[in-house]
């Protein structure tokens, strides 16, 4: 039964990477947003495979539920202009595409050279209880500060898009 986990990993990794590539490559923005949601779902599966079930749950709740819907609203409220004059610098697109694989190969080679070959340890009993202990005991103050940050971001977003006629 030792091949099940690598098989699941390969399937989920393919979903994540294909979804990410579709976000970048699809010409229609709606397709990009939906494939971003697919990539987030695959990432939730990877979290669950790592034994972080609570994080996987939050991933589905926040990323797939909230952020994808918010991005879809952004797509809905903006209109794609017809392709105008290309204002990019010469070779800007080619330089972007060339830079990324080079750095990717460098990072992956470094990771494997540092021999992170060891298997991931999975603890029994799930991660909700240690996570709750950490967040609400050791990191209680940063947690409260994060909630203030969310409130500030919400007020800021409302203030930015509010029409100025009242």
């Amino acid at each position, binding site marked *: 039964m030792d091949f099940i986990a690598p098989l699941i990993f390969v399937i989920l990794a393919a979903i994540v990477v294909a979804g990410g590539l579709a976000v*970048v490559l699809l010409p229609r923005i709606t397709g990009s947003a939906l494939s971003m949601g697919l990539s987030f779902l695959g990432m939730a599966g990877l979290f669950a495979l790592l034994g972080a079930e609570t994080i996987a749950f939050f991933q589905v709740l926040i990323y797939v539920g909230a952020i994808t819907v918010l991005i879809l609203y952004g797509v809905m409220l903006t209109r794609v202009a017809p392709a105008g004059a290309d204002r990019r610098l010469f070779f800007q697109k080619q330089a972007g595409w060339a830079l990324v694989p080079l750095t990717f190969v460098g990072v992956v080679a470094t990771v494997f050279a540092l021999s992170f070959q060891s298997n991931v340890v999975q603890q029994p009993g799930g*991660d909700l209880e240690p996570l709750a202990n950490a967040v609400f005991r050791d990191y209680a103050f940063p947690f409260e500060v994060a909630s203030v940050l969310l409130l500030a971001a919400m007020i800021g977003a409302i203030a930015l898009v509010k029409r100025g006629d009242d």
Partner: protein
Amino acid sequence: MLSVPLGWFIAVSSALFFIGAAGVLVRRNAVVILMCVELMLNAANLALVAFSRRLSDATPRGSVFVIFTFVIAAAEVAVGLAIVLAAYRNQPTVEVDEIHELKG
């Protein structure tokens, strides 16, 4: 015991991160650029959780970091979309190359 090496998770994480980076560099639509930033944040989350599992500490510090990253990502996408919509109201385009009011 899970039989997937840590390096594989890091490889997927860096692949997704650099796909997002490529999107930020080559796409012109501001909403797509926001999506690519979200992909990069998510890739960083995967790396954090994977390293946290590797350490197998009693306190899952990596997962705590990921929770704070979720908060930051939610705030970022809300404010980012608000800025995009405000710019769109000012000048009806979301192509970042067309927003050049401050260009000399």
